[in-house]
């Protein structure tokens, strides 16, 4: 079982993930239409790139008014996303497996740090969950898929934590490890098909709006507005 989930199934998952997100990006860009969107994307490419860069700069870093207005929520959100993306990519155990399979490797973070980052993801996830269950503003927007997506995102971290610490918890180490790998694969496969597609579509959307403002909505006039 371990050989299967860490071997062929992992390969299939990565393939679906990469093909999926590339397809989403291509579909997004192909769907842009200067007339329908009313943005001269190609004619004013220079101004558009400037606007897109400005938009990404202000939102990848906490240099925006939403962060100023909602500092706690945004701090948790930034932490959640940073840890969620960096932990699996730089976790030593993952790199060892990748090196054994494809003979490539890169820097790793100490297990101790990864451990705290995992806890940060889980804690932030619980914060989001509680907020969804209690805040009337979030409640009215929440659909079943929001919970499912949150569960998909958190599962690899919770099971990873259990497996790393070799807690028995009924199933035993090896079962938890297999469950962890499966959860990671479910997440990878889900990214192109669910709201998790914002993994790439966030960039598409921000770049598009940045271009809109950079080209049409005053980017070429005045001091430019950061969105």
């Amino acid at each position, binding site marked *: 079982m*371990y*050989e299967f989930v860490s071997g062929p199934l992992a390969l299939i998952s990565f393939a679906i993930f990469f093909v999926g997100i590339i397809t989403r990006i291509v579909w997004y860009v192909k769907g842009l239409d200067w007339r329908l969107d009313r943005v001269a994307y190609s004619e004013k490419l220079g101004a558009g790139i400037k606007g897109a860069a400005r938009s990404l700069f202000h939102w990848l870093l906490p240099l925006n008014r939403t962060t100023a207005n909602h500092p706690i929520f945004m701090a948790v959100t930034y932490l959640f996303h940073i840890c969620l993306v960096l932990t699996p990519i730089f976790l*030593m*155990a993952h790199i*060892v497996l990748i*090196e*054994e399979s494809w003979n490539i490797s890169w820097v790793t973070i*100490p*297990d101790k740090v990864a451990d705290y980052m995992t806890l940060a993801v889980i804690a932030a996830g619980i914060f989001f969950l509680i907020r969804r269950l209690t805040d009337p503003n979030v409640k009215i927007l929440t659909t079943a898929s929001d919970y499912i997506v949150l569960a998909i995102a958190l599962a690899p971290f919770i099971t990873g934590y259990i*497996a*790393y*610490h*070799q807690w028995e918890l009924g199933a035993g*180490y*090896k079962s938890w*490890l297999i469950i962890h790998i499966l959860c990671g694969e479910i997440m990878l496969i889900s990214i192109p098909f669910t709201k998790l597609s914002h993994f790439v579509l966030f960039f598409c959307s921000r770049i598009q709006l940045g271009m809109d403002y950079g080209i049409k909505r005053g980017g070429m006039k005045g001091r430019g507005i950061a969105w």
Partner: protein
Amino acid sequence: MEKNRIALYIAIAGLASLFIIGAVYAQDDIKSLKHDIFVERERSAALFPHVLHTDEAEIDCLECHHIYKDGENVWDDSAETECAECHKLEADGKTIPLMKAFHENCKGCHEKEGKGPITCGECHPMKK
């Protein structure tokens, strides 16, 4: 009363014998691959019951122990047995780094033979 006392002696003797058997067994077994060159370890030293490999699995010494001369493994009992003598922490262009050597040697064989542990935690247990 008498019965209880006998039971207690048996229990003590049983436990003690476990330790004695363990001590005898351990004398000539290497239990883990604890090498000092791993200064900053992320994981505990890998468990390695040597006797299990030699006596029960009857694996030839040369499967693991090696000194190559002209493409031939010339290792014997009298030669160096300390892996870290040749395999260093970082790749030096001549030998595979020590961690990789262990992973490839142990896990590679376990996978090939379909026997023995291959997941991280089975060799590197968490210190409790």
